[in-house]
């Protein structure tokens, strides 16, 4: 069995790392705040920061690998039924139902 000094230390370490990196250790309401919205609610041309991914673990991981990781900057290029975003220097098409699971905040703080 893994041997850390104490269970409490381990839990504290996990949470501090995750909180620092904006991961979903706590519930999304706790760390997202009122200003968060999903990617479909953003206007075309706006640049936003990814705050939280609320999809299945596999889909979350693929999104992260393609650049949609927490804290990443994303620009919405085109909205509609499906949307196109600019992330990590590439255009990525996303279905709207997936975009609804990507919670973001405006970079300049506007809601």
């Amino acid at each position, binding site marked *: *069995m*893994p*041997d*850390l000094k104490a269970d409490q230390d*381990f*839990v504290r*370490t*996990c*949470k501090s*790392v*995750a909180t620092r*990196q904006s*991961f*979903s*250790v706590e519930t999304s309401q706790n760390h997202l705040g009122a200003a968060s919205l999903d990617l479909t609610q953003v206007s075309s041309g706006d640049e936003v920061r990814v705050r939280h991914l609320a*999809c299945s*673990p*596999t*889909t*979350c*991981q*693929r*999104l*992260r*690998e*393609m*650049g949609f*990781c*927490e*804290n*990443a900057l994303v*620009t919405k*290029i*085109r909205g*509609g*039924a*499906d949307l*196109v975003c*600019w992330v*990590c*220097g*590439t*255009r*990525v*098409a*996303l*279905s709207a*139902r*997936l975009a609804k699971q990507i919670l973001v905040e405006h970079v300049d703080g506007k809601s």
Partner: protein
Amino acid sequence: MSQDSPKRWIAVVGNPNAGKSTLFNALTGLRQRVGNYPGVTVEKHTGTAFTLHGEAVELIDLPGMYSMAARSPDEEIAVKVLRGESVGLPKPDAVLCVVDASNLERNLFLVTQVMELGLPVLVALNMVDVAEARGIRLHPDQLSEKLGVAFIPTQAHRGKGLVELRAALGQGLLKPGPRQWTMPPPLAVAVGQIASAWRQSEPSELRAEGKALELLAGSDVGPDGARKLATAWRERFRKEAYDWSASVVHARYEYVRKMLGEAGIGSGKLGGTWTDWIDAVVLHPVAGWAVLVGMMLTLFVSIFSIAAYPMGWIDGAFTWLGGAIQNALPTGMLRDLLIDGILAGVGGVIIFLPQILILFFFLGLLEDSGYLARAAFLLDRVMHRVGLSGKSFIPLLSSYACAIPGIMATRTVEDPKDRLTTILVAPLMSCSARIPVYTTLLAAAVPVALFPVWGKAAAMLGLYVLGTGTAFVLAWLFRKKLLGGGSPPLILELPPYRMPSFQTVSLRMWERAIIFLRRAGTVILALSIVLWFLSSFPNTSNDPTEKLAGSFAGQMGHGLEPILRPLGFDWRIGIGLVASLAAREVFVSTMSIVYHVGGEEEGLVTAMRSATWPNGALIYTPLTCLALLVFYVYALQCLSTVAVAKRETGGWKWPIFMLLYMTGLAYLAAWLVQGVGRALGFS
């Protein structure tokens, strides 16, 4: 280098559409297929390249991947090769990472993973011209210094940077790079413990840590102690709701961003490019569909208008050849075999080569320009309604050329049920082998004077729409009712547009022409000879019609006629249907043999149009031609498709299901067309 030294194997890896195959082709002189959309390469290919010192190395071109955590069959192929688990290939001695210089952030994410394999790594900084055009200033030396592996700037499509790359590939010059990103504390403890259990068999710390991460991710390859530790840590992280895999992705990206920032490399500007302007039209919910339909219509108009000229030349050549053989040889079996068997069978199919090449020219433009991914995006909404994602549309669109590469392209589809559904409906997309059948039957159905080019193009488009629409309906049925589960969401990279390469498009057309002519010279030639024999013996009469009726083929056709009569098909069509079980285009060559028309298209159409039932009624009425067309839209008349479906699904169950449902659907649809048409007063 010593003559006895074993050859080194170097894996070529990278993100989809980074230019791996283009670089592989440039280094090996081979001609692997390339294109401007993610997922062109779905299989591993090997080829020999030479270093600057003359050492021969074996390059392994791998399908594109976003990470070492494979999520689709094509990514699995790449990961297995890199880990040395691929059957028939040794573990690579080094890795050549091909990265898109205009998109370094995401491409270097994969490089950080590949480096943990503990293998020597060389990075080809490809498409530097695209990056510079986007205002990205690259500093290869700084990248090399920071990441600890060599970066060589290249432009694979122009052959630039190849000398430097060949020099860097030399033996002893490549070294494994260190891990530069910082592991988050809780994970570092876990990886340290698991890696120490590996250390006895894996002296490299970097590789041991890489293997520890693989074990945590669910791999079951490793010593018992390490596997047990990994399972315990996974459980621990789960209990503490610590998403360790997310933290790894985050840490890698953090490192890459920081490193690029320190090297002064930005991610370029968005907006104001050709891609943005074109996308504004082709991704528009209304204009986008108009562009798609307009392109398809242009394709079919070209198939009938432009192709008419070379088809006329081929027709003329076969007519001349037939006349020359007739004049040169005395009446007899040999002359009959050459004119009524080989010339009719092979010539009857070769005449359609220009139409097939035009189809491939258009598909080549779509693939090489970057439009294909946009079409998938546009169709995602439709695909979602039938239970698939837009990603499945790329294999389906490839099936317009041929179902075989279409079915193989399903390897890029991540969801297994999605992939199976796509495989099952891919043969319903009208492939190039159907073009000879469609063209002949459309010409037989309506006189040329009444059927202008636009009319033929619209009818052809209708047949394609019928196949595609049915594929969508059946996909819904299979996905929702047979296989169950929901459709996965679309995540698809849209590459920047680029001017299609004349070389790439013409090479694809050339390859298809060779495949088509080889098929005509082998399968169709053999079947034509067999069919000539079966339709000439036993020789019971001097009258050609009675002779055919009494022949082996005629007897078989007569045996089938009771089953085919409800569809409006006679025994001669029955011969064509059976002969074309192997390949659809054989129907045309069979009909040419059956009606003794040599290799002339017009001759066959005239003969079909004047063919009658014993009571004098015409056989090829517009209604019967329509029923036959519908039959060919649906029927799976292609043994190669069955074989590739067996390979891709791993057994006979689904190919047999595919064969049965498509044959049943073809019969039922043709019967309905005939029945409903007659009830409405058509003949």
